[in-house]
């Protein structure tokens, strides 16, 4: 479980996160939703320690991230897998080397063992015959799959996905969503996903947190989100003409 307690973060005079307290449960897809610029990515970067928080604390099971030393944080991060918005694959490495990279860095596995693990992870994300390709030769959906394969290569306890299906067509986006859901349940990970895609919410939103103007505005799940009477949430969820008509707004 990951817990954020009273997390506040400002950039200059702008308060981006305002006293956010939230618990992300293990074995479930925890979705953080909100408009662009609402603070989702900042919250995720605070959770993984890429941004230092101004106030509050982030707790991984029983370990407080914000109180860790540089070396302690490095140890915790070996339990974290992250899928970045732009995939963040190492563009000088082939697909298989991208996936093998964390294994080469932190395990004593032989090349054959690393290759076997990389092939397993790549097949798990349904990506075959792409081992020798460079990231520049991959489509957007393939890059996301490789990034997921790299994220799960070390069997992480925590998985973070920042807008995993942004820029993808609806079908591929759905495939990626289902893949993340399956992996989360299969490996009993604590998964946190940033998205503003309502299809993802309805598909995999075991827990849903709505961030608005840097505050936690609403929390629930995919079954309760459509029936909420929170006006700001409804403004976000039923943003299109079609959905507003269906909702009767």
């Amino acid at each position, binding site marked *: 479980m990951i817990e954020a307690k009273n997390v506040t973060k400002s950039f200059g005079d702008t308060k981006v996160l305002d006293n956010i307290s939230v618990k992300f449960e293990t074995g479930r897809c925890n979705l953080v939703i909100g408009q662009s610029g609402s603070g989702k990515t900042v919250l995720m*970067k605070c959770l*993984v320690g*890429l941004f230092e928080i101004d106030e509050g604390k982030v707790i991984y099971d029983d370990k407080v991230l914000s109180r860790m030393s540089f070396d302690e*944080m*490095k*140890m*915790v*991060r*070996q339990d*974290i*897998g*992250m899928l*970045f*918005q*732009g995939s*963040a*694959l*190492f*563009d000088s490495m082939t697909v298989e080397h991208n996936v093998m*990279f*964390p294994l*080469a*860095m*932190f395990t004593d596995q032989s090349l054959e063992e690393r290759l076997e693990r990389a092939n397993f992870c790549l097949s798990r994300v349904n990506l075959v015959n792409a081992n020798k390709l460079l990231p520049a030769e991959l489509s957007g959906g393939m890059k996301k799959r490789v990034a997921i394969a790299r994220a799960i290569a*070390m069997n992480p306890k925590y998985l*973070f996905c920042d807008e995993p299906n942004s820029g993808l067509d609806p079908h591929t986006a759905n495939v990626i969503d289902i893949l993340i859901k399956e992996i989360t349940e299969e490996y009993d990970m604590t998964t946190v996903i940033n998205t503003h895609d309502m299809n993802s919410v309805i598909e995999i939103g075991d827990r849903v947190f709505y961030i608005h103007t840097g505050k936690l505005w609403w929390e629930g799940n995919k079954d309760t989100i459509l029936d909420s009477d929170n006006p700001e949430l409804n403004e976000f969820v039923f943003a299109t003409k079609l959905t507003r008509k269906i909702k009767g707004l």
Partner: protein
Amino acid sequence: MTFMMHIGRYIRLMRLVFKKPEKQSIYLRQIFIEIENLGLDSLGIVIFISIFMGAVLAIQMAFNLDTPLVPVYTIGYATRQSVILEFSPTIISLILAGKVGSRVSSEIGTMRVTEQIDALEIMGINSATYLIFPKIAAVLFFNPILITISIIVANAGGWLAGSLTGMVPSAEFLLGLRAFFEAYDVFYALVKSVVFAFLIVSISGYHGYYTKGGALEVGEASTKGVVHSSIAIIVFNLILTNLLLA
């Protein structure tokens, strides 16, 4: 951001760069890759510039020392001394600041803006060490070799120019090259090459590592890396000359 803030952040980055690497075998492999990228790839340009630099120096010396009061071999001697003391270590390092510095800044800057550095950090890898240390180690090892090659080639260029133009007889030039040789001069040149190599990669790496934004900012970081490392070379040239020769 003020100058002192940059200095403070640079020192903090260097402390991170020289932390113990996660896995030494991987870093060793990276060092060899960087020796090829930053060192061997610069060999052609260093040889080309050194030949012409030595040739021009010899012709200028011959032109300026065209008097019966100065022995002809002085041209070879003066060319050698200029090449060893200043032209090869400083001018070649300034050229490498452009070639190597822009490469380091733009490579690391691009990795920053495409979140590849964040990805390294999330994996628990000290990104500063992983990205900058092998580059520093590679140039510290290879820059003295490049400068030594440059010294040899520049003197050869001077001899060739003197002989081909007929301004300096070959025997006189070679006599000058061997005259009053002090090994300490070469030591001084190599010390400068090591210090300048460190400045080029660490300053360019610093600008790349703290790039924010997109493609435009990567370009800016690359320019800053080249300009600031060139300025640092000029300043440290004076400091080292004062320390080692005065």
